[in-house]
């Protein structure tokens, strides 16, 4: 029985192979020679005779030198333009790692010290103020970023410490990569993993100080900060209402978190759960240990800040809850406009100008070399029958 089966299988395979052979041979050989005479004469197709028509570019002074010059001539203006764009971006960067607590109880200690003091409780965040002066109004849309240094969001174990399926709303995911932040109290942590657990939780308020000392809160929008594609494809709440008994039933909050995932943004009910934009931004791990992440946008609909952040005195009220000094990290807050090309970054502009210049120099150098020493084409070869033999 078994044997019959195997024979049948063999025949089937052989049939398939035969058909395959047939079709390939039809492609490979010209029909003329194969059918009529049983000669072993190879087909004379251009493919088989390696005679396919072909473009054969060669390096000559006529092509290479102009290339250099064109690159040079094109790159320098592009570089200048890039530099200009980058230069037009206005940016205010304030480091606040060591800012002092405003709470008199803390005795003018830095918030960092407060946080690391043994009697500090997580429930009472340390508050500190960053005052700064914007000399030139920031034109256009203004974005507020927080920046961290020496924070290894790109560490292998960190990057992998998440569960893609859980974030897509699947409640039965194994969370195997999340260890040791997979479960708490025998309940799965939502969202699990080291990334989520280390969610940046400083909060900021931006205030414009009038000369009279009055504070005008700059309206900040905390939505629209995550990539649309992330929101669309990568983060989805489990079905059910975003409550402890609903979508996140039988889950634990991450160890470091003060609030559960469904309470992340009390102001906007829909901006909660895995779809919380702050979380989404954080979950898109940075490529480098020094990074910035979008925290909020200045609301343009407010009258005063319609097209710019006017020059003047500003204060950022920081609710300081995120310790970084233990591993030598720092925290920054950045206010920035963008250009057509994004943020401030002179790298490309400079690089283009440098490369353009090098190409021009190369072009000139090769031109001189070519004119002075270059072998002129084929006259040399024809003169040198001595080594060709023919």
């Amino acid at each position, binding site marked *: 029985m078994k044997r019959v089966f*195997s024979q049948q299988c063999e025949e089937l395979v052989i049939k398939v192979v035969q058909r395959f052979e047939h079709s390939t041979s039809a492609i490979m050989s010209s029909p003329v020679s194969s059918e009529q005479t049983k000669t072993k004469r190879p087909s004379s197709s251009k493919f088989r005779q390696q005679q396919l028509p072909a473009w054969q570019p060669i390096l000559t002074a006529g092509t290479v030198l102009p290339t250099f010059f064109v690159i040079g001539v094109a790159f320098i203006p592009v570089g200048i333009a890039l530099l200009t764009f980058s230069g037009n971006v206005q940016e205010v960067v304030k480091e606040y790692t060591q800012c002092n607590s405003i709470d008199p109880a803390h005795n003018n200690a830095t918030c960092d010290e407060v946080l690391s003091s043994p009697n500090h409780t997580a429930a009472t965040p340390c508050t500190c103020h960053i005052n700064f002066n914007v000399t030139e109004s920031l034109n256009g849309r203004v974005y507020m970023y927080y920046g961290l240094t020496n924070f*290894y969001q790109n560490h292998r174990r960190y*990057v992998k410490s998440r569960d893609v399926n859980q974030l897509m709303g699947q409640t039965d995911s194994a969370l195997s990569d999340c260890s040791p932040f997979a479960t708490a109290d025998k309940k799965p942590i939502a969202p699990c993993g080291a990334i989520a657990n280390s969610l940046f939780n400083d909060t900021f308020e931006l205030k414009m100080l009038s000369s009279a000392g009055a504070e005008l809160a700059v309206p900040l929008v905390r939505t629209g900060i995550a990539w649309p*594609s992330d929101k*669309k494809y990568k983060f989805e709440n489990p079905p059910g209402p975003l409550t402890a008994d609903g979508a996140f039933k039988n889950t634990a909050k991450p160890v470091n978190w003060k609030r559960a995932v469904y309470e992340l943004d009390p102001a906007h009910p829909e901006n909660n759960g895995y779809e919380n934009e702050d979380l989404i931004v954080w979950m898109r791990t*940075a490529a480098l240990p020094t990074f910035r992440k979008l925290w909020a946008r200045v609301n343009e609909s407010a009258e005063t800040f319609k097209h710019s952040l006017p020059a003047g005195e500003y204060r950022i009220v920081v609710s300081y809850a995120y310790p970084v000094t233990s591993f030598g990290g720092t925290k920054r807050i950045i206010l920035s406009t963008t*250009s057509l090309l994004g943020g401030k970054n002179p790298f*490309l502009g400079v*690089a283009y100008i440098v490369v353009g210049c090098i*190409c021009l120099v190369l072009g000139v150098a090769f031109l001189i070399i070519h004119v002075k020493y270059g072998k002129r084409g084929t006259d040399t070869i024809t003169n040198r029958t001595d080594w060709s033999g023919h």
Partner: protein
Amino acid sequence: MAAGTAAADDGDDMETSGSPASGQSSPAEGNGETIEMCRRGSEDPEVAEVLTRQPATAKERLLAGARRVFRLKEPPPPETERRIRANDLEYNSQFQYANNFIKTYKYTVLTFWPLNLFEQFQRLANFYFACLLVLQLIGPISSLTPITTLLPLLGVLSVTAAKDAYDDYQRHRNDRQVNNRVSLVLRHGKLTREQWSNVRVGDVIRMENDQFVAADLLLLSTSEPNGLSYIETAELDGETNLKCRQALPATAELGQDETLLGKFDGKINCEPPNNNLNKFEGTLEWNGKKFALDNDKILLRGCVLRNTQWCYGVVIFAGRDTKLMQNSGKTKFKRTSIDRLLNVIILGIVGFLLLMCLFCTIACGIWETVTGQYFRVYLPWDALAPEGATAGATVTALLVFFSYAIVLNTVVPISLYVSVEVIRLMQSFLINWDLAMYHEKSDTPAKARTTTLNEELGQVQYIFSDKTGTLTQNIMVFNKCSIAGKNYGDFIDPVIGEVIEPTEDTQAVDFSANDMYEPSFRFFDQTLLDAVNSGDEDSHMFFRLLSLCHTVMPEEKDGKLKYQAQSPDEDALVSAARNFGFVFLSRTPSSITIRTPRGEEEHEVLCILDFNNVRKRMSVILRHGGKIRLYCKGADNIVFERLGNVEPETKARTEEHLQKFAGEGLRTLVLAYKELDDAYFEEWKKRHHEASVSLVERDEKLDALFEEIEKDLVLIGATAIEDKLQDGVPQTIANLILAGIRLWVLTGDKQETAINIGYSCQLLTDDLQDVFVVEGHTMQDVEAELNRCMDDLSRPSADAKAHQHKQSLSVVTFSSVRSAASDEGYGHDTPEEDPTSNASGSGGFALVINGHSLIWALTSKLERLFLDVACQCQAVICCRVTPLQKALVVDLVKKHKKAVTLSIGDGANDVSMIKTAHIGVGISGQEGLQAVLSSDYSIAQFRYLERLLLVHGRWSYYRMCKFLRYFFYKNFAFTLCHFWYSFFCGFSAQTVFDPMFIAVYNLFYTSMPVLALAVFDQDVKERQSLTYPKLYTPGLRDLFFNKLEFFKSATYGFVTSLVLFIVPYGTYKDAVSPEGYTISDHQLFGAVVATVLVVVVTMQICLDTTYWTWLNHLCVWGSLFTYILLQFFYNYVLGGVYVGSLAMAMSEANFWFCTLLTVIVLMVPVLAWRFYFVDLHPTLADLVRAKQREDKAQKRRMDEFQRTPSARRRGRSVRSGYAFAHQEGFGRLITSGKMMRRPPPLASLSMFSLGRSGASSPRADTQVTFCAEPSSVSMGGGHGDR
């Protein structure tokens, strides 16, 4: 453990089963070594033939393991003795002998996967990657999802599996074909048609003419008298001449009486299955009598029955027990120098990989200590790491070692071996497909029988060539002769009255008056025919001898008389005699019938003193008209020594003629005869009989007897046979020498003729300063002669250098030419000049060494000296060499020179050298199949060698090197990005790229363009390769791919990866999009670097591609398109985690600026570098390319440059000299009476058949003659045994 050693290890002691062959049938001089017939796993010759027609897939490496396994499954039965009872199925079945079912396939549908996988994992490379796969499954180590290794590994495994499956399917098909052949088996006294596979041991089967023998048979009876049968063993050992087998007289009487045969119940006791083709021992017990059985009564599977209408035999060995199947030759798996280099390089890469891992481990330890341990707030250590700071950091760092081994493993490219083999396979196809190497006349295309050596064809430094059949056509033409001191055969132009060389159009002598003439025979001297017709006694004696003194067998085919000769020389002589009216009609063991112009003569054969290589002569003793005469023909010096009182003038004239013939490169033989006294002969015959039956020193005694009788001969004359040179040989040799290849001719010719042919094929030229001849007989002589050559060589080489220096001053372009020649490719380092390469122009040296000197030159004491001398010579001719010496010479060069050697030959005597050399080329010529079957490449004509090397070899080498350079470059550029990234991610083995990208980078994204390059790229057109043979030199000097080139590629890859990392790093550090989104995240960065990488390596292949066919365009642009397509398909459709990253990147301008910048930054230096060399130090290839382009632009007609083989042929035919055939003749068969035939029913031969008594009852007739000539039987037998 490296992938590299993998290939190295299991390549070497490869065992491939192949069909055997042997000297069973070849009484050829000492060439008894087993000739492996087919290097692939085909046991049946027919299978072999079918298989070899397939492009040799040469997957021996892969199959080896399984073959071993396969063998283990079927251990040879512990049989000590085989007992068979004919026609007794029941009795025989108790021993469970193998039936005749042939199984060469390895898998069935069910066993394919397990077996094939097991096989494949025996390959170290695959095993290495399997280990990596396992590492990746370990959580704490795994830095990549296992899929990154799994996917390519699956790809590689399935490609190989598909190939294996296809191969096995072919085997299945062949097996089926063979097993389903029908043979006639006697079952229950009746002939029934059975498939071969159903034939069992003990069956009596009937074979018919021209059928393959189905199994090893004991011959019972045949249609021929005396139970004779003739077989052809061409499929076994490549020899086309017939061999003869004889049944026991007792069984022969069974005839074809099926009832008798059906009742035949002989008991056979014989040796167990073994692989000795020449020996068989056993006994037959039948009717109460015991008969001894030997090899003469056995028909082996694989032979073809010829000239025998039918025969019956008992199956003794069937299926896998047949001698054919038992033979499995060992073939040393040949690997190219690039393969070996690759292994070294890959070992180096693995070392480099481990170094990087080590570096990362240490760096990780430091990082964990300095930063990591404090970062534990957010990222605790792995569960495996202990809590203590130092201990934890250490353990983490150690784990990272393996993680990096996984991440960086892609520098050892898993797809390298597969790609290389695919490329070689394609290149082999291109060789097989080449019309320019297709020989129209013989309908033979060139064929790459081994697909793994192609690029080595581009690096050949030494060619060892056989002469006969390789340089020459091995067609012998009776050209001239000297009869009684008179010279015949020169063609005198009737107009100018001078001797000229006849051409195709020259009017040949008309022989049509003779009804037995052959139209193909052309002779240009009418005077000889006139002399014969006028009854000139000398010329009659001359041709009578030619028609009598030989071992040719007559045969009638299609009503015409044909001759079957052992050597083409004999054939030429006998057919010359035939055309001049002395027609050899037939022979019986005791008589030869010829027709002379005066009528038919029957000569009684008294004795045949056969030819052998020591005697260099053959004689027959015949009685005719009451007179006993000895006719002798042989090598000139041998026969001259044995002449009696000859007229000194005639002798001198003949010698003069011989000189002249040899000078024209003709093979010469001297003819003589002697009248014998009756009484003396009787006495001699008695002694001869005694000697031939004596058990001690029989050969010596016989030789002495022969020596005694072959003296005081009377000179008749001398013959001169022309050995025609193949088409285009001189031009090919000249071009190969110009390409820098040394050609050594190894020939059995004598010295003068060898030198002569050396000149005629332009191996030796008049430009040569000196031709050294080494011909010493003792070690001292040889040493002295070699030392003298050495002195001569070292002296003028200084002069030559001075000369050259002068030349370089006077010729302005000279220096750049030199550098051009040596700077081919990127290499611009001047390799040290060896003195001989200068000599190629003018005034080189050549060495001619004799076989007897070679014996000493090849001793360990002198071999270095010999080699030094020989390698400084432009041409070397070794004459009078044996097949073994041929192999030794090749081996000497192979051993001491790090050079690629190629042997080319066509005959059995070349097999050893073909197998020894790095590359063996077989000429599918006239001398059977052995050379081709043991070769790596087969071509139909010597002149195709030029194209094989200069075009295909060069291209293959060029392409393979380009491929390898690019391949390493792209993998370094790819993998080292991770290394740079490690500095930013805390040495945590985080990858830059999407794991999916890593998995398919080599497989999908970058494989096609480089494969297209490696198959189609041409730097210069083929005709330029032939026009400028110097284009070949880069291959000779390993310039295109060597350690330095690898280092350059790797460094360039290294730099590329750095740029690939730094430019996006600069661009995306703290980057935000115009909409304010942060776009400096890891996934986007990875996607950008990956994309730029793909673009950059694709641009690099664009720069590298010099020959853009539409296929290249398709592959290059298609591959870019595929990348984008697959990225989006994978991320959006399959749900990859990197979803959106690339789209986000591509939607904003920075990405494009970044890509352009990276491409320009990486391409401009390459462009500048290459342009610098093209402009200032152009290689020959560069110049030729430029010229090619110019020509094209000017639409100049290129045809004038094309040198078609026909245009290159010269009208004049060139000659060679030779002495005699290599092999012994049919002497033994003739005299033993076995060659008796039924009279040919040919009308034109009727007279002679009437001359034979009792033609209607041949058996009785033979019996009589047989008995009448006992002495000649034993005499011949004794002689032939030697």
